């Protein structure tokens, strides 16, 4: 087995110049996506804190319609899903795609206009939600006058990702590219079907709920999850300098995910007004998710074995490993929640909210943070200015999210148990949840501190045009000596 990439000889250019060119070509567009994503994260965090606080202090800021819980909560969800998560995901997609295809980003202005369009559409949409124009469909609340803008923008991004791919200089595909290509193709398809059948020309009655959860589940499973996994599959080997334990397992994981995940949506409808076959099919598919999840977990774990010491040095590795572990936990929790006996209790409770944050935060967001730690210094040619802020960011978000999701999962379960006992008056059920809701607000503050630290570090990185780089060796930029002899194995 050759130690270097076996295809290097195909490439005319010197390797270092090529990497530098690719990274530089991504600078403007990826920064645009990252920075606007970060602004959405901050906005989403404020909205989250408000919503969380209101849930145990209902009178707080209750005098205006636009500040009511139902709207703030919805604005939060859309800001962090379609603002932060989607935009950062696109930034990561672009960089990974260029790096793995070994081509510079072409026609940046096109991508930049997609970013601008996306942000305009989203601002209009979120203001619309606060003004009361929500569609009322979960995960698709953005009013219909802004979704065509978003769709157009996303179509540009998807097409451009495929164009980059089309012009790739590296003929062979890495598993991350499979995930990314699938994600950019799946998402427009999901989004357009859902818009058509739910917003533009709503289907009849309960069918809407079916389409709603087919979309709601898949937007996480077929858009965010593949991007998160693409990052893990790239950065985990990259940082520790060792190939993924079993490439075969990673491909198997991809295809089984593709196979089972999109059948999962109806497990959100267990007990609902639907024919039994629909629900059963989703429960079966949800249980089958054990295959890709366990395959992925084994693969990541065996890749990391013997390299855990490296967590000390690399922020990327810390976040990515945290994300990878959370992927396993949250997916297994998802499998459990789909099963009828568990759903009977946990459905309709805060357990579901906790589960959504295991997936979207502990897995996806942490993975994206990790990716940004790797990408930003390379595209800006600057080192991270502050180690302190990095540590603060990591510990606040890691501890914060664990303290959020673990107790709330449990609190939701207790809430469900209390609700199952018809003798317990409803207000007593509410009381059961209160301590957990209050704890959530506290953890929200901890997470917010982490986000601010990260944002400050990014801004600092960008303004620090002058000043010495730390040391030449450490790896980020100038570090490595040009290699002469490849390592044999």
């Amino acid at each position, binding site marked *: 087995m050759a130690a*270097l990439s076996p295809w290097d000889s195909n490439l005319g250019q010197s390797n270092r110049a090529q990497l530098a060119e690719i990274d530089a070509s991504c600078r403007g567009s990826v920064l645009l996506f990252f920075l606007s994503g970060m602004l959405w994260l901050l906005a989403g965090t404020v909205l989250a804190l408000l919503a969380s606080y209101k849930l145990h202090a209902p009178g707080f800021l209750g005098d205006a319609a636009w500040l009511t819980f139902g709207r703030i909560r919805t604005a939060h969800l859309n800001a962090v899903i379609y603002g932060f998560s989607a935009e950062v995901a696109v930034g990561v997609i672009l960089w990974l795609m260029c790096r*793995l295809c070994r081509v510079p980003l072409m026609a940046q202005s096109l991508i930049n206009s997609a970013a601008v369009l996306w942000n305009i559409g989203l601002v209009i949409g979120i203001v619309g939600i606060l003004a009361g124009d929500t569609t009322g469909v979960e995960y698709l609340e953005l009013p219909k006058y802004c979704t065509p803008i978003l769709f157009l923008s996303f179509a540009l991004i998807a097409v451009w990702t495929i164009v980059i791919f089309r012009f790739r200089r590296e003929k062979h*595909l890495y598993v991350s590219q499979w995930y990314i290509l699938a994600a950019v193709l799946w998402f427009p398809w999901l989004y357009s079907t859902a818009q058509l*059948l739910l917003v533009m020309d709503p289907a009849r009655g309960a069918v809407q709920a079916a389409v709603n959860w087919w979309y709601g589940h898949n937007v996480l499973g077929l858009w965010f999850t593949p991007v998160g996994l693409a990052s893990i599959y790239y950065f985990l080997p990259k940082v520790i300098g060792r190939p993924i334990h079993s*490439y075969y397992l990673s491909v198997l994981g991809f295809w089984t995910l593709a196979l089972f995940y999109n059948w999962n949506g109806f497990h959100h409808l267990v007990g609902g007004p639907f024919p039994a076959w629909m629900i059963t099919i989703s429960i079966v598919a949800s249980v089958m998710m054990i295959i890709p999840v366990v395959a992925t977990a084994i693969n990541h774990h065996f890749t990391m074995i013997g390299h855990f010491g490296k967590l000390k*040095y690399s922020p990327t590795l810390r976040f990515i490993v945290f994300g990878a572990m959370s992927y396993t936990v949250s997916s297994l929790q998802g499998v459990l929640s789909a099963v009828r006996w568990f759903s009977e209790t946990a459905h309709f409770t805060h357990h579901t909210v906790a589960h959504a944050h295991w997936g979207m935060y502990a897995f996806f967001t942490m993975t994206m943070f990790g990716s940004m730690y790797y990408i930003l210094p390379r595209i800006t040619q600057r080192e991270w200015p502050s*180690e302190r802020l990095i540590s603060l960011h990591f510990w606040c978000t890691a501890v914060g999210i664990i303290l959020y999701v673990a107790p709330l999962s449990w609190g939701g379960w207790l809430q469900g148990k209390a609700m199952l006992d018809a003798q317990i008056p409803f207000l007593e059920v509410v009381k059961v949840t209160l301590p957990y809701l209050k704890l959530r607000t506290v953890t929200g503050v901890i997470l917010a501190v982490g986000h601010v630290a990260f944002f400050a570090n990014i801004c600092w990185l960008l303004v620090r045009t002058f000043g010495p780089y730390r040391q030449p060796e450490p790896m980020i930029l100038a570090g490595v000596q040009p*290699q002469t002899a490849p390592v044999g194995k």
Partner: protein
Amino acid sequence: MGIISFILIGSSLAFPAVALYALWWAGREGQLRHHDKAALLPFDQEEPLGQMTDVVLNRSSFPKQTLTNKA
């Protein structure tokens, strides 16, 4: 609902077609073979196998010799 049914059924035919094409393409391109080589794609001369990248924190305690790929 006529148009909608048409779109739905139409796309459920189009989708397998695209999928089949992807599969055929992947097979032709050799994506389904050479897994050991594919696993090395993230690495190159500049950032080679066997070398940690992204040493940002606690640099003073990072073992020096592992910084080069001779380790």
